[in-house]
């Protein structure tokens, strides 16, 4: 059986990639994608811990399902906002969306 640390390492790698995407990319869609990666890394952790630590309790899977739902709605709202901004400003670059800045 694959040890737990592999899963955790994979999840940490995924999280770091997502974090890098969020911090470094200028495209709003890419930032959103980075967030999805970070959420999925968390999901991976949750499921791994459930399977290896408390396989008899269902709460780990429930957590994962809730995170899916949140991620889906977040993606829907985020993409809708981005499309709306694009229609007005013809850009999806986060730095150029500066309407409320001083």
């Amino acid at each position, binding site marked *: 059986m694959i040890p737990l640390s592999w899963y955790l390492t994979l999840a940490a790698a995924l999280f770091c990639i997502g*974090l890098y995407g*969020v*911090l*470094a990319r200028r495209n709003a869609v890419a*930032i959103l994608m980075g967030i999805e990666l970070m959420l999925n890394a968390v999901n991976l952790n949750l499921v791994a811990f459930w399977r290896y630590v408390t396989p008899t309790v269902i709460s780990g899977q429930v957590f994962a399902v809730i995170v899916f739902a949140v991620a889906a709605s977040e993606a829907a709202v985020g993409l809708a906002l981005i499309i709306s901004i694009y229609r007005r400003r013809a850009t999806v670059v*986060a*730095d150029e969306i*500066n309407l409320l*800045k*001083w």
Partner: protein
Amino acid sequence: MQPELLTWLIPLPPILAFFVIVLLTNRSNRLSHSIAIGAMLASWGLAMAVFWRAITTEHLGEHPFEASIPWLPAGSGVLRFGVLIDPLSAITLFFVAWTCLAIFVYSVGYHNFGKQRDPDDRPGLPPRAGGIEPMYARFFAFISLFAFGMLTLVVSDNLLLLFMGWEIMGLCSYLLIGFWYGKDSAKRAMVKAFITTRVGDVFMLLGIASLYSATGTLNYREILFNEEVLGRLAATPSGVLGLSAAGLIGLLLFLGTVGKSAQWPLHVWLPDAMEGPTPVSAMIHAATMVSAGVYLAVRFFPLLTAGWHEGAPLTTTMTVVAFIGAFTALFAATIAVAQNDVKRVLAYSTISQLGYMVAAVGIGAYVAAAFHLVTHAFFKALLFLGSGSVIHGMEHGLAASSKHAAQPIPGLAGPAGVHAHVDAQDMFNMGGLRRKMPVTFVTFTIGGLALSGFPLLTAGFWSKDEILADAFANGHLAVFLTLALAALLTAFYTMRQITLTFLGQPRTEAAGHAHESVWTMTAPLVVLAVFAVAAGWVGIPEGFLGLHLPVPNWFHEFVGGTLLEHPPALAFNWIPLLTSVGVAGFGLLFGWLVYRKLPAGAPDPLQRPLGFVYSAWKKKYGFDEAYDFLFVRPFYWFAETFTYRWVDRGLIDGFLHGVAAVALRMGSAFRNYFDKPVVNGFGDLVGESTKRFGRSFRIVQTGRVQQYLIVGLVFSGLLLSYILLFQP
């Protein structure tokens, strides 16, 4: 109806008339004078009804008409006010009602009712060319209020109500003397009259207060008809100049009389009061106001003479009263001799005659004083109204002569005929008016003869004779001689006045063109002339000339009943009678001889033989100047230099300005050394440092979410490392 009830109603109509005229009808001259005269007529009717009931009541002195209601709670008791008709107030009411009515009617003609208003006339100035008085309705309102004051005073049963009537009259006299307020002299005269009478009134108020504190009441009958109270007052020493309490209170009240009745040394206001319209002069100086002073003295005769009985030497108070009266009588008579203004002569003669009455009170001749009060009111009102008629005629003459200037009057010589500067009141500009103004001439002459005491016929003879007889019979020789001398002068200046005004030839064109006044002016003259003769017949002494007259001395019996002890009738004596007849006859004759052929423009024939005495009389002994020097100017100095310039401007303003300057310094020091550096500095520091702090931290706020995330990441990494490394 009950006489008490009628008495209550007597003063009411004039005050209603006053309010109605002032508030409602003052735009309509006809309505206003109708209301005023109607109201006076109502009061007159009531007064006559009450008078008739009074003289037909037996023993009125013991059982007068009286009624009162509680008025003011004062301390432990209650001040009541009410009405009282005893013989003295009955006869006073009689002459007041008659003269007031006559004066009201006379005012209609005097103020040119029925003429067009002259567009050049201004309110506050006398009409110049015979137009109607611009403030006609106001005049009637004022004299109505005046009549109210006098009637209240007469029917009052206590000293306080009397004082209120007294002060209402003081106010009205002020308003009426200054009726033509556009004239500077009238303004000065009104203030002078008000202030001079106020001097007397202050003492009178002191007298009232001390009387109230001594007896606990101000009702006449409770004080004056109460042997016990009078005896107690007479026996209590007052601690002032050795006077008894009664003497001191009497003297204080008498000072009120001195002010109101213009006795020396407060006589100065009355001649100046001639600035008012002539009906006012008659009203104030004959019928009402000056009579009020003597009425007070006569009313308080029992108090003034407390501790004295018939035949005893005079008390101090009585001596003072007698001296002031007799002195004033002579003193004013001498001034009257040298006056040229027709009304001023009468003013001084009024002062002189009032002096007679006061002297009569002072020597204990109670009935004689009251008698002279009545007769004098009639003939002096007559003389004043007559002089007003003369002035009126002269003013018409002036207006007419400026139209007919081309036709010179025969017998008129030289430059005196120039009408430009003719004074309508100067007797030396008159003459020959008997033909132009017959009714005025006859009535004025009757009044003049009454004033000078023309024997047997006139009222003035009987009353004056009674005073002289009383002075002689009781051995007051000094008073007798003074009054006799004053009577001589009275006769002389009266004849001088009649001769200069009516006899001889006209001395100016104005006098030549004068004409008789309208009937509303002459009718009152005729009525008053009847009284000026007939009023004396009620007081013909018993046993006169040794005859036994069918009628007793009604006046003496009636008025004498006012007192507790009825004064005894005097035995007839030839000496005062002959003196009285002699001085009157000689004075009249001498006056006629001196002035009958005075040419126009000539100086007074007395000027040369009398020399400096004449100029002293002419200048009224310099009392006006002396008072000006002694009182008026020091007070002006006190008011203007001391109070205003030194105290007010220097001390009080200086103090205020000093406080203000110190406050300003302190304020500016606070501002410069505390507010600006400390308070403002602190505030600025806080604001400025916040601003700087914010500005320097602003760079952190880039607005880029990713940078925030990095910061967040770094800090959460640090926090995590800390927890992992240092927490167990």
